[in-house]
């Protein structure tokens, strides 16, 4: 069953075509990699799917419902979480508070009641423990190391229990040991039923992690399929090696 469906999505920035009739389908329960050379439009696709920039053409649907005109907060509420290329956390909030910001609450009463309800706090601590950063729960986000910020950003996104998580370069600026850890966390979360769409430049890491890969080149999806098969595609080799 397709969870996310992108059809003929296009975006131009002035004279530059960033995304050109791109179509991608993300199956529920998969870990899909979105790869491509620099400037191929991967992050622009992420920004359009999550409502940060409007598309010029094409449609995006999540669980068979169009999400084209929705803002980022509404899209997040529907079950699509995302991280950013450079880990973005709230630097003047503690790690625990960072975890509590994304928690969903319905109704005015819930909104104006305490920010750290004990069950939410317990869930946040559980997630921090799962990510091995519970010891920094009371530290301000701005004082954490880059690796801790990466994990915190991932953990915070998961607090609203999204069905689909878009990870923008989770391996960027991360040391090999932490990278292995992040990969392991993603696999374990995927086993819990969360679907991932991952933009990444680290080929060996993404090929090991993902069950399926889509290759973007000049804003178009030029290949898709199992990692081993995609690796052999002549169009992919052309795109990467410029042959």
């Amino acid at each position, binding site marked *: 069953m397709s969870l996310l469906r992108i059809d003929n999505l296009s975006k131009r920035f002035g004279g530059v075509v960033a995304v050109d009739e791109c179509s991608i389908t993300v199956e529920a329960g998969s870990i899909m990699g979105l790869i491509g050379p620099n400037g191929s439009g991967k992050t622009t696709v992420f920004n359009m799917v999550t409502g940060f920039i409007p598309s010029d053409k094409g449609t995006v649907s999540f669980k068979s419902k169009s999400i084209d005109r929705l803002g980022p*907060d509404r899209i997040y509420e529907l079950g699509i979480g995302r991280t950013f290329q450079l880990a973005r956390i*709230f630097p003047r*909030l503690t790690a625990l*508070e960072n975890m509590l910001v994304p928690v969903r609450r319905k109704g005015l009463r819930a909104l104006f009641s305490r*920010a750290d309800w004990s069950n939410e706090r317990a869930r946040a601590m559980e997630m921090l423990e799962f990510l091995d950063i519970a010891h920094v729960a009371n530290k301000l986000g701005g004082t954490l190391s880059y690796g801790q910020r990466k994990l915190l950003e991932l953990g915070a996104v998961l607090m609203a229990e999204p069905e689909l998580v878009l990870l923008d370069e989770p391996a960027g600026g991360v040391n090999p040991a932490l990278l292995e850890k992040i990969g392991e966390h993603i696999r374990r979360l995927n086993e819990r039923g969360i679907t991932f769409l991952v933009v990444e430049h680290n080929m060996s890491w993404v090929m090991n992690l993902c069950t399926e890969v889509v290759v973007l080149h000049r804003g178009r999806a030029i290949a898709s399929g199992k990692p081993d098969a995609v690796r052999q595609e002549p169009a992919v080799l052309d795109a990467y090696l410029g042959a």
Partner: protein
Amino acid sequence: MSILRQTANLKWVGIVAVFALALVLPAIASDPATTNIAVFTMMYIGLATAWNIMGGYTGYISLGHAAFFGFGAYALALMLGHLHIAGGYTVFLFVPIAGVATAVLAVGIGWFALRTRAATFVIVTIAFMFMLQLLAENLVGLTGGGGGMSFPVPPWRGGSFNPPYYYAMLTLAAFALGISWWIRRSKFGLGLLAIRDDEDKALAVGVPTRTFKLTAFVVSATLVGMIGAVYGYYVTYIYPQFVVDPLIGISMVLMVFLGGLGTLSGPVLGALILEPAQLSLAYNFGASRLYLVLYAAVFLLVILLLPRGIVPSVTDLLVRWRSRTGPTAPAPAKALNS
């Protein structure tokens, strides 16, 4: 009993003692000069706390809050005039209605102003303030224009003149503090702080930023409008440049910056330091506006020495000192709530 628990208890004892002192102040220092300073200090505690709900929690610096202050004063004067209400305690019952009128105005202004961010937002708020000042100047039939408007004459004389206003300002300051405290510990408040740190990121994790910002803006403006209404009745005569005064807007901002932006106690501390100092200068040096030089000096010192304000800087020092001397240092997050 742990040190943390003791500190919390001590904090509550301190709060109750300060509030009790505030309640009996007109009885123990009853001369009009002192109670006048007390009225203005209480007014600025309320104003700075109200401004902090928007500027401190969301990071959106409004330099145009004097517009709401003046609007509240005009709203009350118009209401009292149309309804032929005589001076006395009844007038205070109309202050919340002036607050509601200010809230309606704030929804309109906020709707447009909050489409901008950072420096543009600052400029837009200043522009709205001057627009309102010009409107008050030019809508002569409604506001009396440059000739101003009068309030009903209060029935109190001599030493009994200031206390009713003092208690009205105290009530509003306590109300503003209560709302600020409630917001700070709520999920809504956490959303506002997230907006302050990184608005796009907040949006990405489901914070409805536009609604949150507008709500904070309206709450903040409503409180300022109510305080402006009481102020109008206190001075009994208002005109545009007097109540829609940029200096009132700047004063509340400066007090928050001095005490600690985004903290609960910072605005109170800032008002307690700056307003009596300002009034003392005014009393001692007449209408020389020497206090403006003091303001400039304080602003420079704050920027240079305490860019985060007194409360966060002192809290940081205490946390660092406690972490060196014992294992029970409070978490920075708790410290920030001070």
